[in-house]
């Protein structure tokens, strides 16, 4: 990567090379500007930083451990596999790292109402939890199909006091939930903050969500120094919108000795076209406020995606990933539904850790490459979330009734 020494994206226009930007209706421009100003003013502020650190430590339970998957490593008989345990966070995934930060931004802007989109429900739960903790009204937009796939999380959000709004337009999944959240935001922009859950959307969201999630990569640096006396050889993370990947990759972007690998949802296989892997098999376009790689047809219409995991079932990807793909700093691959399910069972049975189906895609790729590597080599997989929410879905896919 040519510019690795001065990697300093996004630029003032909110761009990562040619990607990113702010492609939204005029009504939202002032809200984005307000958010950007608030964030830029607060991010260096000691009091604000302390507030976030305290929440991350005592509400979320950070730092998350770096765990050696000993039996899985022995079974695969290759590189050593470590897991960054984001599944142990409060609410069960990395998503809460972002929501604890954004809810504080909302409070500083004087917003009383929080909205969010959710696919797998993890971001919805993480948003509902922080809204409850701060006593703010909370509405979560969720595709009807995802509500069905992720019913335990729907009930969790309701218990946390959020209203879950079923989205019936379009493909009834994550992208449509995001459209509907945008429509709500444009209508209630005065008193509402929209907590986008991924490194996607218009600037400054991709930056803010990346920065809040970077705590994962920052901790990993410290933990690897202490544990191995060096950085890992490879870091692997699943990529839907790409927030857990960006969070663990970002602090390592300038450390060229570390291979960074993002794993997209291969669905039934890239060659079938039924997948959710825009970086592996997409083209450049504009959706949800950003220029990025998308799954689209020749007329610029967004295609419906397919993945066993609701959280990766999205036709776009964060613009910084698009940049990192083209620059070559990060390598992007994919894992199929079948490979993900296989690794879901592997990790559950071998390590006693049930991963989210999203995370299982990253594990599937680790499983593929670990046996080919030397036992001195160290792989860290970002274990982005826990799999309890997926039990009913896995049972259904495998033809079982609970």
């Amino acid at each position: 990567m040519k510019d690795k020494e001065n990697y300093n994206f996004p630029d003032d226009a909110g761009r990562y090379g040619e990607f990113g930007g702010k492609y939204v209706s005029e009504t939202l421009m002032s809200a984005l500007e307000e958010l950007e100003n608030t964030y830029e003013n607060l991010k260096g502020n000691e009091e604000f930083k302390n507030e976030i650190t305290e929440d991350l430590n005592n509400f979320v339970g950070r730092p998350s451990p770096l765990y050696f998957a000993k039996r899985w490593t022995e079974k695969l008989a290759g590189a050593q596999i470590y897991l960054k345990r984001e599944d142990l966070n409060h609410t069960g995934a990395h998503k809460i790292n972002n929501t604890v930060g954004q809810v504080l931004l909302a409070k500083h802007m004087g917003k009383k109402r929080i909205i969010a989109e959710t696919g797998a429900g993890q971001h919805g739960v993480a948003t509902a939890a922080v809204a409850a903790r701060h006593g703010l009204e909370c509405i979560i937009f969720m595709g009807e199909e995802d509500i069905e796939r992720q019913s335990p999380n729907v009930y969790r959000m309701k218990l946390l006091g959020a209203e879950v709004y079923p989205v019936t337009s379009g493909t009834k999944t994550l992208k449509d939930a995001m459209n509907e959240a945008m429509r709500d935001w444009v209508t209630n922009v005065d008193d509402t903050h929209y907590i986008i859950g991924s490194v996607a959307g218009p600037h400054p969201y991709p930056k803010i969500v990346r920065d809040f999630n970077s705590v994962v990569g920052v901790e990993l640096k410290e933990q690897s120094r202490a544990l191995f006396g060096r950085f890992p050889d490879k870091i692997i993370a699943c990529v839907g919108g790409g927030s857990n990947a960006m969070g663990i990759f970002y602090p390592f972007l300038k450390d060229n000795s570390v291979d960074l690998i993002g794993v997209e949802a291969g669905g039934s296989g890239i060659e079938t076209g039924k997948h959710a892997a825009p970086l592996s098999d997409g083209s450049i376009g504009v959706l949800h406020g950003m220029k990025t790689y998308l799954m689209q047809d020749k007329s610029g219409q967004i295609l419906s995606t397919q993945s066993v995991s609701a959280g990766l079932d999205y036709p776009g990807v964060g613009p910084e990933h698009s940049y990192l793909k083209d620059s070559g700093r990060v390598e992007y691959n994919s894992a199929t539904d079948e490979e993900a399910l296989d690794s879901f069972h592997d990790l559950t049975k071998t390590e006693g850790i049930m991963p989210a189906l999203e995370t299982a895609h990253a594990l599937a790729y680790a499983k593929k490459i670990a046996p080919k590597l030397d036992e001195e080599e160290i792989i860290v997989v970002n274990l982005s979330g826990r799999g309890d929410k997926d039990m009913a879905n896995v049972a259904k896919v495998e033809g079982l009734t609970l």
Partner: protein
Amino acid sequence: MSIINSTFKNLQKNKSKALVTYTVAGDPDLESSEEIIEEIINSGADIIEIGVPFSDPMSEGPVIQLAHERSLKNKTSLPEILSLSKRLKKKFNNTPIVLMGYFNTFINSLNSADNFHDINDEICEELKNSGVDGLIIVDLPFEESEAIFKKLSEYQIDLIRLISPTTSELRINDIINNSSGFLYYVSLKGITGADISSCEELEKRVQSIKKITNIPIVVGFGIKDQQTAENMSNFSDGVVIGSAIVNMIEHIQTKKTENDFAKISKFVGEIKSSLQ
């Protein structure tokens, strides 16, 4: 002078205000949408906005979202819409045609190259040859499109910008400097087809913009009846009617009758008469 400019000049001379209509191409099907637009022009519409369907129309309310879905079910494409525009232009050569849609369909369905690039000469030529006089690209703020604005103006295609109740004074100046044809004032914070809450505040805003520019200002989003149209036209240069017409088209379905079109013509005629 562009056709859009001369249309506003003529209206001014006749002490009338512009009726701008919005319908989605390919709704309920391509042929019917063409007939509907012809009826609308014959009933007194001054400027025709043709909606280009998109799979993710983020700024639209439920009525227009469904129209986009119906149109996409018919696989309506931008090249087909350009042919439609060309045919309309032949019949009504003084009526301005404006395409309204989302950025992705403009950049991804007209480029012959596989790689993404912005609106270029090739696209501009195609638009011009199809009789397109202007573009409204909902998700393209001026920050992202200064070059596009310049390119389009080389071909005398107007880039019509939206101003909303949340637009700051500073931005209004920038928007004015990067727009042509007319300004589209979004009457409310929200999506198409919602309800307008305060007419007075709207009037104040439009009048303050009129003080700093000569570009005509039309008001849109949420205008559903004669009374509202008349009220809005008192302080602006025209109104946009979209959801109210699209709502009528929703009921046309496949077996259309003369009566369906007659209802739309009557409605358009009534609105136009309230703008005289």
